[in-house]
């Protein structure tokens, strides 16, 4: 599903050029659950952002579902993103002004799903993450675990082929963290590909494969199963 070859990414300021990702190669098969690990500043999040088409790559190739997307413009990226990729962030990134229901509904609005259909799908997914009873609450009224469940619900409501999770349990206690990890595992078992950046060895155990990075390069890949 994802085939990245010879990826280079630099950050430039007026005086220095920092290499964020250096000649990186990654393959992710459809239906895989991959964890990306490494110390802070090793380039995990940059990689995730490039996979999610939130960031450009400077050199190399990125093939998503057999299409070369490295040179896509903003509009095409946005289009590809909204139909294929769901995001889960460490800090949840729910919109404070919207209720749980409305937050989850948002991706469906951007893909022009009719209102009745939206309602059905949002309710389904809220049932699935067991937050239906809080559908009319605002994010600030929920616990961290609940917020992250909403974020996961939002990520999957469009039935994306790929979920990108950036330290999804980073802001959660262990029981809430486990809940979220179980949720991701269920989604993976249902066929969704997941790429997750994490610091936690515990969380990494939920994945099929762990990619370890250092200084912008992949140093080791291990299979957990």
């Amino acid at each position, binding site marked *: 599903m994802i085939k990245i070859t010879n990826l280079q990414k630099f950050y430039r300021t007026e005086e220095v050029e920092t290499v964020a990702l250096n000649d990186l190669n990654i393959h992710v098969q459809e239906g895989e659950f991959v964890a990306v690990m490494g110390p802070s500043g090793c380039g995990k999040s940059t990689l995730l952002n490039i996979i999610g088409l939130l960031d450009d790559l400077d050199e190399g190739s990125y093939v998503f579902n057999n299409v070369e997307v490295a040179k896509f413009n903003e509009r095409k990226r946005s289009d590809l*993103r909204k139909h294929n990729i769901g995001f889960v962030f460490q800090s949840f990134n729910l919109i404070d002004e919207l209720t749980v229901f409305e937050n989850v509904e948002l991706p469906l609005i951007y893909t022009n799903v009719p209102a009745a259909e939206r309602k059905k799908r949002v309710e389904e997914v809220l049932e699935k993450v067991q937050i239906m009873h809080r559908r009319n609450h605002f994010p600030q009224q929920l616990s961290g675990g609940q917020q992250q469940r909403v974020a996961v619900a939002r990520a999957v409501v469009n039935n994306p082929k790929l979920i990108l999770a950036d330290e999804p349990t980073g802001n959660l206690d262990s029981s809430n963290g486990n809940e979220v990890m179980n949720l991701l595992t269920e989604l993976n078992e249902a066929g969704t590909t997941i790429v997750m950046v994490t610091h936690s060895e515990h969380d990494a155990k939920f994945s099929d494969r762990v990619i370890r990075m250092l200084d912008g390069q992949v140093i080791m890949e291990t299979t957990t199963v």
Partner: protein
Amino acid sequence: MTQTYFKTAWRAIRKNQGFTFLNIFGLAMGITCFMLLCAYLVHEWNYDRFYPNIDRLAWVSYGYKGDSENEYQYVPTTPTAAAPTLKNEFAEVEEAIRLAEYSGEGVVKTATQTVVETQLMLADEGFFQVLNYPFVQGALSTELLSEPYQIVITQDLAKKYFRDQSALGQTLVIDNQPWKVTGVVENPPTNTRFNFHAVLSNKHLKRFQEQVWHSANDVTLLLLKNADSFDPLQKQVTAFIDQRFRTSPDKAASVQVNIEKLSDVHLFSKAGRGNLMYIYIFAALAVAIIVLASVNFTNLILARSSERAKEVGVKKVLGAARYAIFYQFLLECALMISIATLIGLFFTWLLLPAFSQYIGVEMQLQLWREPLFYLALILFTVFMSLLGGGWPAWMISCLRPLRILKGKGATAKEGFGSAKALVVLQFCISLLFITCTLFATRQLQFLQQTNTGLNREQVIVLNGSVLKDADRTALKNDLLRLNAVKGVTASYDSPVSVQGGYTASDIEGKGNDVAISVTAIPVEKDFLTVFEIPIVAGENLTEADILRARDTSTAQEYSFMINKLAAQAMGFSQDEAIGKRMNLNGRIGRIKTVVDNFNFASLKEEVQPIVIFPEYDYFGNIFVKVDQHADMAATLGAIGASWKRIKPDIPFESHFLDDDYAALYKHERQTAKIMGLFSGITISIACLGLFALSAYAAQQRIKEIGIRKVLGASVARIVTLLTIDFVTLVIIALCISIPITWWIMHRWLEEFTYHINIEWWIFLIAGVATIAIAFLTVSFQAIRAALANPINSLRDE
């Protein structure tokens, strides 16, 4: 999707109530000012334009000049012959009517009360047909004013005198003469020059039956057969007048009869009362205020944009396109702007009467009856939304999702940079207003204090037009007995604004063909004494001069008093002029006195030659000079008591001559007042923006402030750090505004022959005051930030 946008917008507005309030309130204030000014502009612009026949209505003005003059002097009135001549001689003219002020006292007596009615007009019978005027009782016809002592009154007057009864056929007693009511018309709106309470038939007056070409005292109004015959008619009339006056004995003067569109008279005519320049000033003021308020709005939205960055980032990650974000924020701004517009509309409605009183222009607008008004309102809201919301919405929609989600503060800094540029613009406009107001106020003060050559202090003006000769003499003798009264005199019109255009001819020793156009004024004997006009040659009038002037035999001779300029114009030195014979429009006499030059018109104009002469036919004003140590209230009471003894049936009315003088600068005063008001408002709006912006800046730098404090910075240093940026902006604005203000004021002051110089210290005062206000505004936030415990801000991390 729109529904979701609305929902988000509404919640965002509710979430930041303080911010929203400041933003909406500032904008609503601006919109209110804008709408009030627009009301004024609409009022002036539509002056007389609502008459159904307006495209065919013509106003006839009259221009004349003496041989020695280069320019025509225009008056909005015409001689009695103009209307009938134009109607009879020119096929293009469907109807021509004359209109004059009723010259009687206007005392209306009923069983219970005695009232002096003003705004009574005398008109030819075609008046209402020409205007196609709406009737409430009776119907439009030429019979309404065709007989002597017929009267058509307004609804208000009908209600006042006849209550709920029909006024038709009833009688109204004016100056002891019964007038028969033949119609009741709607009250005229405030923006017409035919602002009457009643229109009286002129058939009882001889002068309307005689057609003469001198004495231009009537308004002449024409209804043309079709709208495009103005130019051809003007050509024919000019040719006709040339022909008519070629053989005139009054060959010294040439005459022009101008056919002007009534719709243009108020603003564009040389004879009009309105002034186009002030329309431009007010329009500029309105535009400036609305721009200022929009800028403020934009500024606040931009400054807070980073707070919305996360939302934008998330939405973009979830697939929102840029236009969707733009649309959402535009909608949010539009929502706030709509609320502000509604508030503004409400306040405009509430404040219009007060505003109209404040600027001294009576305005009754019924715009809400017009469908166009609502369209304009909708267009205004859309326009404002694009103006105030377009840019911030665009800036916000440009935010890069990744940068935001990484917490890099997005474009807060960029937004802030633009906000600063906008602050400069705001203060530039505010400073412009403030400095212009200061200059205008100083000029008006200068006009009021300038020694115009006649002493108008402590002079009370009484209505002389209602007193016959004997009454006036009795009143004068009565008043002179009061200790507080130093002198009493009378004149035809006010000495601060003498209107009469005359010709001095047959000047002794200068040949028969020399004629000089002069201003002249009939006066009572003590005129020079009361106004303390210095005599430079000859002597003051005596009783003997008066008797000679009033002689009805061939021995009649006038004693003329002229000013130095008139002597000069006649080619005499001051002393040579004394005793010279001359003819002033048929009045034969000798020059008895040469007086110093004094201003008898607005200081916009240079002093002109004037002839002052004793003629006791008509005195419009009686002047009572009161001792400066006297108790004014008691003196007025005593004068009133004297009046009551002599003229018991006419209410006593008085005002100060200084008020007449001030009235010469009504437009200027109005403008200065409006400018003063709006400069106060603009600076408030600008400060409101600055206040919010500084709060935001302090909040943005809270960590920096914490660190600086931990490192030992004093409160004063931190306050300086936070305020210096904003104060610099105001200084930049000051530098930009100075040359612009200088140019505008230079142009304005050039209108006056006598004016102040553009003084640098006025800029200094305006600058220092504005900087002080800006500093106070900003320092409030800065001090708050500087006094906060640094631990709190650092712990946030």
